[in-house]
């Protein structure tokens, strides 16, 4: 204990020395430059009978706080950084294992352009990330940085060779022998137009790449004989010609019995491909993905959102209007097939539909469904632990729908004062699969949003957002409205209410496939919030007070369940 305190003290002391030095160095340009960022989020929780939040649920932890500070120092080819984080205790909805504080991240890097070496914590991805991606999303409490060594070589123009070796962050647990796996890997990337002289002037641009990642974790299992070294590899290609672009990647993982796939010995594989074409005023893109048994973590016993070695992107539109984001999709690593297409069109100015300023239209479609799994020769049921689990033909489709979203969004500047965004989406959300709630029915929801901005002075504007979600399942219907007053660029004030009016009698009923009728009564409830913000340069202060509905917050493919709460919240963020 004593030792730890001394360590902490030493850490702080060295940080302060480092800071004072760099702060001093700032005044003299040639001593390098310092930049950094900072964020502080705190919430006061109060009991709310209607939400079912009592004093005993809050349990004395009425005030919670998440914060971080990041500092980067740069001098010529050298750079170094530290990130301090504190969760005292973590805000509701974050993993409790985050509780504590300290330096979550420290690194040093030397980059000459030909060789680029990092020691300490780093983030990187190979290709699309299907075999390796280390990244962080602080607002979601997600960080799977690798602590180790990374070297990037650029021996010739158009050639990049990467090597990584380390262990991944697991909350505050320091790596000790066999506490989790070790990750190592390499990746190569060739931009052919730079390498092959006859292609240098070509309009067709081709990049080829491939990588290999391996995890070492000792086998200490009493029942199964588990592979200690698990490798995954991938090959990829990028091709572009004028406005046309095609990217495709195939990945394969050798047998890796783990807690996600329920300890089966089957190999995993995945393919991702996307094409797009665009010209002025028009763009279209289509992507497809097929994955089978591709969950890959540093520790085979872990599930949930930590220690991910790879990243399997969900092929769905990321919605930001809150009712649109009510039912977001999360990738099913054990198998899914997905397709997505988007069309963007700008109706020209001065046309009948376009009016004086033109009009933007976006159509999107995405669908994810199961893959076909058949019984393996050595197992009695699909997915039986300790066996090959099941068989699946590459690119085979199953018949269960996981998620679908069909939507349209238009944006139009009406005149000098008014701007309108209107959007409508139809969702099918398989709650049973996505949230792991067996027996829950498929949620079919229709959502519309209108977002009108009115600028009445040069820098004063009012934004009015109206939206409605209609569904016969889950919690029923919602109506939401936001009125926001902006005085650019510094001030804003917003009042928001989300009303869960369920339906006329407040009862949700559905019939299970077995013919049973389920009924649940949901209380009609308002979720009002008031918020205000002040921004000066990069410093932003946000205050809000009110009820927050339970929901799933997703950023960049990672989602977090935000619990319902009531109280006062403050966010301060800055960077320099």
């Amino acid at each position, binding site marked *: 204990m004593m030792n730890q305190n001394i360590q902490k003290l030493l850490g702080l002391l060295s940080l302060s020395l480092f800071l004072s030095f760099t702060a001093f160095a700032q005044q003299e340009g040639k001593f390098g430059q310092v930049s950094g960022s900072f964020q502080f989020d705190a919430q006061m929780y109060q009991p709310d009978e209607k939400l079912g939040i009592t004093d005993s649920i809050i349990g004395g932890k009425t005030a919670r706080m998440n914060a971080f500070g990041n500092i980067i120092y740069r001098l010529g080819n050298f750079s170094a950084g530290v990130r301090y984080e504190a969760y005292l205790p973590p805000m509701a909805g974050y993993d409790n294992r985050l509780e504590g504080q300290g330096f979550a991240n420290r690194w040093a890097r030397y980059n000459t352009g030909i060789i680029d070496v990092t020691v300490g914590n780093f983030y990187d991805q190979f290709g699309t990330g299907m075999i390796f991606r280390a990244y962080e999303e602080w607002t979601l409490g997600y960080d799977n940085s690798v602590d180790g060594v990374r070297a990037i070589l650029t021996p010739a123009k158009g050639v990049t060779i990467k090597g990584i070796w380390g262990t991944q962050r697991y909350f505050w647990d320091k790596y000790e022998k066999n506490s989790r796996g070790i990750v190592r890997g390499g990746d190569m990337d060739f931009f052919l137009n730079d390498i092959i002289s006859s292609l240098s002037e070509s309009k067709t641009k081709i990049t080829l790449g491939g990588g290999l990642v391996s995890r070492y974790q000792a086998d200490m299992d009493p029942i199964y004989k588990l592979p200690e070294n698990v490798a995954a590899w991938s090959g990829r290609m990028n091709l572009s010609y004028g406005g046309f672009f095609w990217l495709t990647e195939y990945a394969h993982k050798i047998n890796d019995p783990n807690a996600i796939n329920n300890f089966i010995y089957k190999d995993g594989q995945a393919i991702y491909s996307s094409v797009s074409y665009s010209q002025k005023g028009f763009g279209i893109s289509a992507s497809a993905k097929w994955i089978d048994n591709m969950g890959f973590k540093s520790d085979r016993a872990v599930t949930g959102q930590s220690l991910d070695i790879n990243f399997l992107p969900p092929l769905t539109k990321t919605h930001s*209007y809150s009712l649109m984001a009510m039912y977001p999709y999360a990738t099913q690593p054990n198998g899914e097939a997905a397709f997505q297409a988007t069309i963007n069109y700008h109706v020209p100015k001065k046309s009948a539909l376009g009016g004086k300023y033109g009009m933007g239209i976006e159509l999107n479609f995405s669908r994810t469904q199961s893959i076909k799994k058949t019984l393996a020769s050595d197992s009695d049921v699909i997915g039986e632990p300790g066996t090959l689990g099941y068989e699946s033909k590459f690119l085979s489709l199953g018949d269960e729908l996981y998620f679908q979203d069909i939507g349209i969004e238009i944006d139009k500047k009406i005149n000098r004062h008014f701007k309108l965004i209107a959007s409508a989406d139809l969702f099918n959300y398989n709650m049973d699969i996505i949230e792991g709630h067996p027996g829950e029915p498929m949620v079919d929801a229709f959502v519309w949003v209108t977002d009108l901005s009115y600028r009445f002075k040069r820098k004063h504007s009012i934004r009015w957002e109206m939206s409605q979600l209609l569904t016969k399942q889950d919690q029923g219907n919602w109506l939401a409205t936001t009125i926001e007053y902006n005085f650019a660029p510094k001030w804003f004030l917003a009042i928001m209410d989300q009303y869960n009016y369920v339906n006329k009698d407040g009862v949700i009923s559905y019939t299970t496939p077995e013919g049973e009728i389920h009924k649940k009564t949901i209380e009609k409830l308002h979720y009002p919030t008031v918020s205000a913000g002040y921004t000066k340069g990069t410093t*932003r202060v946000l205050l809000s007070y009110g009820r927050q509905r339970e929901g799933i917050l997703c950023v960049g493919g990672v989602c977090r369940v935000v619990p319902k709460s009531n109280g006062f919240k403050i966010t301060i963020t800055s960077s320099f």
Partner: protein
Amino acid sequence: MKKLGILFSFLLFTFVVTAQNKSYKTLPSVNVKTITGESFNTSEIDNDGKPIIISFWALWCHPCIKELTTIADVYEDWQEDTGVKLYAISIDDVRSTAKVGPLVNGKGWEYEVLLDPNGDFKRAMNVNMIPHTFVLDGNKNIVWQHTSFAEGAELDLIEIIEKVKNGEDISEH
């Protein structure tokens, strides 16, 4: 003890922030990608000695798209008056990088668009929230930055760019 530690770090931060003042920073060298998938080093961001705007955005960020659309309406005039060039850095990850090109072209934006799918450039530039906009002077020093967008903020931005171009003081902004 814990609380003291936090307070201490907090004070240090404030100290560093205030110590910053007049020393300008330059761009870090980070590899990002063009919309056609080729590698691009951020040290190659350039505008022949004229001002540069760097704006971090994403497809899911409505205020970001509002900002870029608003600027697109006046971008031609801005370029004529100041020679400014805007680099729009999309931090969308691989799930939607294929949609960036079609959206940019669909909206008819004339910006230089780069992809930062793993947030390497975002982290190196200390971007916490988007939209986050930087202004660089002719020597590629970062002279101004701002987060968030509201209607009318573009008027401030062009005012700053004009001052930067003429070498005037922008400390009041």
